[in-house]
């Protein structure tokens, strides 16, 4: 835990503690304006619609920083890049003054179809070259770094020639993209593939990490599923503490998408992160 602290190379701000913005809480937020450092939106929920979600988002974006996080950019897909979709992302980012926008290290469909799920890529040289090229094209078009998240994965391709964390590290460095490190996904993936989460975290290039995700998951015994339907387990908090010690503070966000509780429960849960952040600060007075 005594390794060097690495600020992110874009000097993007540590936004503090935030939660994913969900429809169930629109009214609560816009009536009470609760204490929360920032919100993350699921980009696709606000695209191709001019209905109620956008009405609330406009108000919320006036008062809180907003980060955009998507699920359908399909960076790893071998289909052509969808520039029309990028235009929509860019327009939404401008509208809500997004501090950054991103998606996942995955693909979601080919042949013009969309599975609306995060499918893993094989961790091969071909897969890496393909994804680096795509990320560069998308970043050039959007004129900002993409913030890409490590997904939870449930299978390993036999053709993979490198560990996931090496693939991610090389992608971040060679494509010069930012990373959203989901520590719950690290835990889930490592459980599903019998890997060591600490070794995984040690391989991450922290100067590329601008955001951290926390969430709950389901443990099915034979495997874990990233269900975002409960509290963060202790093992994941320990991983968070480890990441925090390396980064010295990154925008931290709690995802809770199923069995969504009342807003104060989210505040309380993400508030736990403050203890780990404070503990790291006390243990590191010279760096404060």
């Amino acid at each position, binding site marked *: 835990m005594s390794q060097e602290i690495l600020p992110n190379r874009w000097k993007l701000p540590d936004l503090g503690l935030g939660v994913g913005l969900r429809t169930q809480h629109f009214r609560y937020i816009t009536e009470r304006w609760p204490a929360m450092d920032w919100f993350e939106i699921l980009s696709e929920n606000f695209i191709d619609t001019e209905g109620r979600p956008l009405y609330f988002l406009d108000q919320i974006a006036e008062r809180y920083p907003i980060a955009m996080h998507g699920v359908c950019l399909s960076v790893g897909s071998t289909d052509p890049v969808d520039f029309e979709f990028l235009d929509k992302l860019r327009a939404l980012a401008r509208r809500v003054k997004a501090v950054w926008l991103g998606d996942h290290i995955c693909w979601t469909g080919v042949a013009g179809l969309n599975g609306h799920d995060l499918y893993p890529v094989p961790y091969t040289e071909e897969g890496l070259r393909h994804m680096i090229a795509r990320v560069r094209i998308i970043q050039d078009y959007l004129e900002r770094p993409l913030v890409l998240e490590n997904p939870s994965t449930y299978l390993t391709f036999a053709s993979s020639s490198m560990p996931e964390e090496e693939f991610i590290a090389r992608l971040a460095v060679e494509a010069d993209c930012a990373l959203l490190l989901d520590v719950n996904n690290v835990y889930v993936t490592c459980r599903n593939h*019998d890997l060591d989460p600490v070794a995984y975290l040690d391989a991450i290039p922290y100067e590329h990490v601008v955001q951290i995700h926390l969430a709950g998951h389901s443990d099915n015994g034979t495997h874990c599923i990233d269900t975002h339907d409960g509290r963060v387990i202790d093992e994941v908090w320990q991983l968070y503490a480890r990441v925090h010690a390396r980064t010295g503070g990154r925008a931290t966000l709690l995802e809770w998408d199923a069995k969504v509780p009342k807003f104060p429960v989210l505040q309380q849960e993400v508030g736990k992160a403050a203890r780990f952040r404070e503990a790291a600060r006390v243990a590191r007075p010279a760096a404060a």
Partner: protein
Amino acid sequence: MSLRNTPRLETLEHWMQAVVMHPEGAAAGVRSRPARKLLPQAALDLESVVLPSRALSSVGRLDIYAHMYYARLLEILADEYPTTRQILGPDAFEGACRRYLQRHPSKHRTLNRLSERFPAFLAKYLPRGNRGGFAVDVARIERAMEDVFDAPRAEPLTAAEFAAIGADEWQRVRLSVIPALRLLRLKYPANDYMNAARGKGRPRILRSRATFAIVYRRGYQAYRRDQDPAQFKLLTALAAGKTLAVAVRASVGGRRGNADRFAAKLGGWFREWAAAGLFCGVERHGAGRRRR
């Protein structure tokens, strides 16, 4: 795996998609013709493509994705079509949804349009008869509710803007309707059924009877209501860009008695539509369209 047998990224993605979207699960997907054509070796030795874990077989790991694909999309369809689901029953509804997703897999980045062809699909898929016909009409209303929810915004005409239309101008003006309006000509009293279904108990499936419903968004709330047949015809003509005079003529037919009855109702209909915020622009004869 030898380098010679390493599948290319494109092949692997097409193969995995064929497997996880297979309606009978991953094992059937691996054996399916499209998957075998893409990666024949996977059907013979799946572990040469997907590694097993300590606890799960290769096909078990693929099945996680296959299960999630249908589970996620079925949940969305059930959310969007609660009354259709109630009419058909959960099992028949899920069966219809699975067939729909096979016939019309999502081609969009957002989920807003996932079910846009569902009512038309049900019309072909369900057996003829009152229950099926009723379900189709209810599905059309539920889909329209989704459509208007996402439709572009437009400011409705205010009372002052209506009042500014001179008495001598009314016959010649064209009114623009808001984008968040759908006009539905139905074969069953589906809207009545949906109102009844919101209460306790389960309403009866009624016999075929032509009804006319509008679905629209006012502010950020979607509404639905039935219309008198002549009222519906008039609103349809106005929505098609006809002047009020032409729309009235088309709705009344040629008979004088009809016109008198119609004229008596006209004011009330316009007040109802204006209160619902259905009009967003006025085009006067020879002038441009305003406030579209």
